[in-house]
């Protein structure tokens, strides 16, 4: 029995290596079934988006005038040519969903990168220097938070002229306060720890202390926030698209698809249901994955 345990232990990577950390992270992460399901789904969507030209049966912008509002394949009138049916101008819903994943995912990724990058920087400044720097940054963030997020995004897009880039900037702006607050709180908590003082005494300057010493120790909550704000970004992009302020036609984007098919909700449910369903599923799965990440990265949640 004891031999069995010993031999099992020796097959694990040595402590201290990157592989060991990865292995312990993975065992914590995969302990949650939901996180695993989320991860698999996200990887699947990513692959589909990446290989869209090969996976999609049709050109997403091609309009088949002979097949308007064809129902999905399981209906009597459905055809194998259009698996999930067509919309009001005869475009294949499935192909548009597949191509739409490219837009939704890449826009959301950009949004997260922008808001996380800027948010971490501002949060570090606020938490590290305190004083008036902190007051200015947090007050501005409070103002941003005080607006309903969609309203603010709408306003920003209206100012910047509707389009992909401005939608991205607007949503990044709306997400910013969460990153700033989180970073600031984490930095304040870590700043007076003795290892930071020791680093300062050995001559580390402000930049080094902020980015090299403090930031790595504040990352765990930020990674979780990144996944959560990724899903919020998908929703917000879809909402902007739905209101006609985001991606402009004929670009296939999930929210815009919803908006265009809205008038046919009664007669052709498929044109509305599938974009809605895919948004719901993606957001849900990302959130599940985010929860798993938090459990795996937060040392306080760790079972020793």
């Amino acid at each position, binding site marked *: 029995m004891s031999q069995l345990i010993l031999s099992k232990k020796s097959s694990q990577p040595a*402590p*201290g*290596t990157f592989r060991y950390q990865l292995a312990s992270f993975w065992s914590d992460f995969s302990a949650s079934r939901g996180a695993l399901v989320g991860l698999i789904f996200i990887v699947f969507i990513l692959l589909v988006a990446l290989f869209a030209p090969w996976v999609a049966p049709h050109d997403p912008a091609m309009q088949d005038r002979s097949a308007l509002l064809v129902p999905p394949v399981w209906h009597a009138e459905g055809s194998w040519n259009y698996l999930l049916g067509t919309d009001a101008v005869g475009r294949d819903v499935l192909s548009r969903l597949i191509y739409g994943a490219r837009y939704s995912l890449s826009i959301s990724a950009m949004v997260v990168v922008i808001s996380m990058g800027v948010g971490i920087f501002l949060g570090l400044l606020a938490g590290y220097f305190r004083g008036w720097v902190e007051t200015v940054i947090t007050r501005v963030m409070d103002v941003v938070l005080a607006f309903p997020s969609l309203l603010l995004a709408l306003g920003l897009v209206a100012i910047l002229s509707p389009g992909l880039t401005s939608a991205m900037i607007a949503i990044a702006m709306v997400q910013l306060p969460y990153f700033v607050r989180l970073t600031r709180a984490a930095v304040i908590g870590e700043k007076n*720890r*003795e*290892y930071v*003082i*020791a*680093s*300062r*005494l*050995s*001559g*580390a*300057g402000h930049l*080094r202390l902020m980015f090299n*010493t403090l930031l*790595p*120790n504040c990352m765990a909550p930020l990674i979780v926030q990144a996944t959560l704000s990724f899903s919020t970004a998908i929703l917000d992009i879809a909402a902007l698209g739905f209101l006609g302020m985001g991606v402009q036609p004929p670009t296939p984007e999930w929210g815009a698809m919803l908006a265009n098919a809205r008038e046919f909700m009664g007669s052709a449910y498929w044109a509305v249901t599938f974009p809605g369903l895919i948004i719901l599923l993606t957001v849900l799965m990302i959130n599940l994955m985010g929860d798993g990440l938090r459990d795996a990265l937060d040392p306080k949640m760790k079972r020793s």
Partner: protein
Amino acid sequence: MSRDAVLSAVNLTRHYQIKGSPFSKPATVKALNEATFELYPGQTLAVVGESGCGKSTLARVLTMIEPPTSGQLTISGHQVSLKEGQRPPAALRREVQIIFQNPYGSLNPRKTVATMLEEPLKLNRKEMSAAERRQAALEMIAKVGLRPEHADRYPHMFSGGQRQRIAIARALMLNPKILVLDEPVSALDLSIQAQVLNLLADLQEEFGLAYVFISHDLSVVRRIADDVIVMYFGQPVETGPAEEVFTTPRHPYTQALFSATPVADPNRRRERVHLKGEPPSPLAPPPGCPFAPRCHLATKECTRLDPPLEHVNERVAVACIHVDQAAARYAVAG
């Protein structure tokens, strides 16, 4: 003294301002009051006293984490003039390093031991190559009694004693002349304490280090200290060579402190000097001698003036107006 002091403090004082709110007046906390001492290479100066007496404030001022409110601090012949929030100048931070009490907070959890040890070199010895830094880190790891394979591990993989060794190694990377030890062993197991203390003694001999050893463990202090400062309520009440202070404590507070130390001798009977009450609140210091409210020798005079530190002989100084009486009583009781 013929030798040059590596560190000298004259009337070192550190006050903290407490901001007033609508319900309270702003106040000043005198965390450290008029500390004067000198430290020589290869010597250990112990600072003892109960919790909250200003020991750690002294450590923070000496390591230039905080500037003194007034008084002079001279390190290796350089007068320190530091402003609030300023980093210590490069030349001086090589001279003084600190070891913290809690080895669990003093090591960056996201860095390997080697990275941590190389950081001071990276910042202060720009001429060194990466390979040289690595070599220096490995040598230091060996010196503090760890093995080379420990270099690439993270702090959470070490025990408290090992972590403290890593902290010591990091402090020594820049070849400082002075090491401020802020209760370096009080968070460790008794058996580990001895090991770390022995390591510190070996390193002191090897590098000619001067230690400022802050502690409340008197049996440890007695073993390693050359000189002692006994602090009470932010000010030194008795200073002198360790041997003399320990054999004939003169200040009533020192006597009480020492008589509270357990002695491993069941046959020994000793009258204990009991202390009444609590240390006074730093926000409302008592008039006169701060120890007067708890002192068994206190007279009316004690509440009128705060006695300065006065030499009772060439090397020992005591801040008490009843020194003679206290010393006599202790001799009888002991």
